[in-house]
């Protein structure tokens, strides 16, 4: 069940109102300390353990042009590129929900 959509839905659903506000405005740069906390949260929750490799493969296939460069900023231990994609999709979902 670790599809990108399912993970994004689960993540968005887990956020309280404050968390939604923070994530919606998050700068998606893992070098920013305030953002890195959320990157790591996503890594720990969704990008480790069973099913993680399938999710990572799905993200690679969906965003191949960005994925090419992921090893320049990311590592196997901390797959920050994939975490950034999940956060970006979550932001989009939150903004979409706000507009409907």
């Amino acid at each position, binding site marked *: 069940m670790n599809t990108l959509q399912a993970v994004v839905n689960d993540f968005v659903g887990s956020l309280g109102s404050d968390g939604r506000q923070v994530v919606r405005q998050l*700068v*998606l*740069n*893992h*070098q*920013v*300390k*305030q*953002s*890195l906390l959320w990157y790591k949260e996503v890594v720990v929750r969704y990008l480790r353990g069973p099913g993680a490799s399938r999710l990572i493969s799905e993200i690679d296939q969906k965003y*191949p*042009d*960005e994925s*090419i*460069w992921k*090893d*320049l*900023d990311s*590592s196997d231990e*901390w797959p920050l590129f994939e975490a950034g994609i999940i956060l970006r999709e979550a932001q989009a979902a939150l903004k979409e929900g706000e507009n409907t």
Partner: protein
Amino acid sequence: MPAMNLADNANPAWAEQFGITTRNGYAFPMDSAAQLSMDPGFQASQPGSVSQGYTEMNSLGMTAEGIPNIGLTYHRSADERLQSWQSNIEDAFVNAPDNAAVATDQLGRLFGAATYGARRLTSDTLNGVIGLPRILTSDSMVPGLINGFAHPIDSTYRIAQAVNGMALQDKLMTVAEIGLTGVRGIESLAGKLPGAGKYLGGTLSYGAGRGVVLTATDGIAYGFAGEGVATIRSGPLGYQAGSAGGVKFGPLDATNSGTGSVAATLSRVEDRFAGASREVGFIVDSQTGDILAVRRAGLGNGTQISLDANIDFPLMKGNVFTHNHPLGGNLSPGDVSTAIGSGTMEFRAVTPTRTTSIMFNNAPDGLIGEPGAAVVFMNGEKSAIASSYRASLADGSLMPPTDLATKNVWMSDYFMQQLSARNPWIQYTVTPR
């Protein structure tokens, strides 16, 4: 809090070579009796607890003969010492006064400045530059510590004196250690020191490139100065650590407040940290060469610094940021996002073999200093450069290395070359070291 640590150095021969005489197991500064006119009522230190072979002699004090002595702390092992220092560090963090408290301290602004500076430097040094194990290995730490702690009269001068002549890293570490061990001694002696009146009645301020400046009642501004002095500021109050040219505390004027050039600062820190295994970053004032902040990757993620958008980005704006890349490689896409988003004037990455740098000239509107827009821009660039990368692979004009580590460096070079070619406003340079 243990006064100091002489665990491996409790023999007289060792102590005397650093200007310390010993008697009955106590250590005495050789020149203290002549230099100090301390309150003779000040109590001598007393032996502390003894357990499991761990003996502690507490704190700075005065013998019955009026000779000041310094406390000795014996620890059984490096682990115990480390534990002790960690405890002190935590204590220093917890007790560090805020700026307002220091500025209005009626006890003595000089001492407030000194202790504040020492504490802040302690925090930043240990947080940003040097790992704790360094404490246990520094050759010059202990003599500097003794000198600083045993002579707490004019604390800022003594701190400067203690660090004079050491390598920068040792200076930072030593001042940090003086901060940890000597702060309370300094504070307890405030008001008891001859000649301190003009300082105690003075006003404390700070100025760009000068760190803490104390204007004494005689109207003269005092502070640190010296050739190659680097000011390390963290918040409005500052403190300074000397470099090769030495540092001294004394009257400031237009000729001695120099803080070294930007190039000198970059050369110094990059030479030292280019090959470090943990990522370390420095924000350097583009006008004065002052080091405005130091950031270090956490222990659990040694190759990645994170920067506070609220604290670090404003410091980086218009200034220079340099950091090392422990795994080699060029500036990363994340680095470029940070550089653009923070509005950094120059963003540098160093390895033992080269320095890579970007600066910006005539950037498109709405990018520089806009972290969110910078990320969106870089996402677009990643996609565009990926397209040309794939095309070049397909036509055989590109042949990436097969070894993964080598390939990553090669990829980062390719990315930066393409990025700068596509965006002439990104001025990208590579300089062999």
